[in-house]
């Protein structure tokens, strides 16, 4: 069974990525997490996202496309990255969400993926 682990981070965390004093610690924590996930053999996919101000949001209404600058919802925390893991149950997925660096300063959402059709 696959779960999506969504890491949400706040402005301070996004800023830390390029901050001279904080960036080393920031990236180290993520590298450690990714290494541990890889070693567990559960990792099925992952991606880090550019900061929310690089986002564009598209809507089509009555056949007309509108493009909006920014993410689909303005919230204090924004999506910073995701992981797809193969886990036997929710407790295993929650365990890996707990170890995700963003859990300590932002929030981490765990969602089961729909089973692939016909599986």
């Amino acid at each position: 069974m696959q779960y999506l682990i969504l890491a949400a981070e706040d402005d301070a965390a996004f800023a830390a990525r390029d901050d001279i004093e904080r960036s080393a610690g920031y990236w180290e924590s993520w590298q450690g997490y990714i290494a541990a996930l890889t070693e567990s053999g559960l990792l099925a996919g992952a991606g880090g996202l550019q900061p929310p101000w690089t986002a564009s949001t598209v809507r089509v209404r009555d056949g007309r496309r509108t493009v909006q600058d920014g993410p689909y919802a303005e919230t204090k925390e924004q999506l910073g990255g995701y992981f797809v893991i193969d886990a036997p149950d929710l407790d295993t997925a929650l365990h890996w969400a707990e170890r995700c660096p963003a859990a300590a300063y932002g929030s981490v959402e765990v969602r089961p993926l729909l089973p692939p059709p016909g599986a």
Partner: protein
Amino acid sequence: MTDTTAAVVDEVARTSYGRLVAYLASVTGDLAAAEDALGDALVAALTTWPERGVPERPESWLLTAARRTLIDAGRRRDVARAALPALARAMEERSEQLSGGVISDDRLRLMFACAHPAIAPAMRSPLILQAVLGLDAARLAPAFLVAPTTMGQRLVRAKAKIRDARVPFRVPERHELPERLDAVLDAVYAAYGTGWDDVDGLDEARRGLVPEAIRLARLLAELLPDEPEAHGLLALVLHSHARHDARRDASGDYVPLAEQDVSLWSRELIAEAEAHLARAMTGGRIGPYQLQAAIQSLHNRRSATGKTHWPAIAQLYDGLVRLAPTTGTAVARAAAHREVEGAAAALLLLDELTGEIGDDAVAGYQPYWVLRALCEHELGRTTAPEAASRAVALTTSPRVAAHLRRTLGPGQGT
């Protein structure tokens, strides 16, 4: 003939429902499907058993029928086709275990799945009560103060989450217990309370709940021997249940605790309760159930000493409201202080309570109005008749209502 068979089906449903659902759900991970399959099996039993006779092992029959439904449903939905042989095999194995009577802790696994931190806290206890005792949303809604349709929708959603997010059916590790045990204990106590609130025995369906709640409380204490609160809960229900035979007089009228014939209290149950309370206390972690059990223990000591030590009871309630403040506890505490310091002191505590939680919060709470009516009656307050009529109006049991009319003076709350 049909009536007798219906009675047998009813009996099997009452005594086996929780175990069968727990076992079916823990094999499939799908609580809603397990409930549906068992429901279908019970309906099938109602039509098949009158014709062919009640099978030798009714539980195994129901299980086989439910299993067939589950496997068919799995095939139809075309879900997890590859898992079907494994499912069938697992059920075969478990079916053998069932006949050996060793699946009792499936219920524990089910209860802990319902108490999982990923389930909304307010839904954990109702979910457990539905899963293990088969109570429907209409029965659960009033106890948890929500509308039946809301309760129904929330239960459906919670069960879908257990299935779709694959909440595991397992007894948590020691370090996870504190987070999850409370909901399980609360559900078992709610099942017990829901059972004997019905002192008139008007509602047939409720009666089965008390023995089931006691069985579950025993199971928890047995399977979690190092958890003081599990022993506390068992001590509490045993102490309360020890007074069962004294709760009604020869004509079936409700007898309040103070007027009960203590010779009718069960010495065996009291002794067993005391042993579990002592066991709980050695754990060194006090909790609300241990305190409530200690309070009931003091009440039951009257059977040995002929007296009730109210100052100690009032003191335990003082501790209980600090540890687990609920409206029920606050009212019971006021009642205890009435015994020690009188009606004026109790009224002061009731006023303090409404000052904190507001008048609306107690508007529909019967014990509050009973105590208020009693205190105001004793103090000769002009508001006493109004409180009395509210108390009587909120009483669902006709016999308890009759008792209140007698106690609070003639012409009250007609």
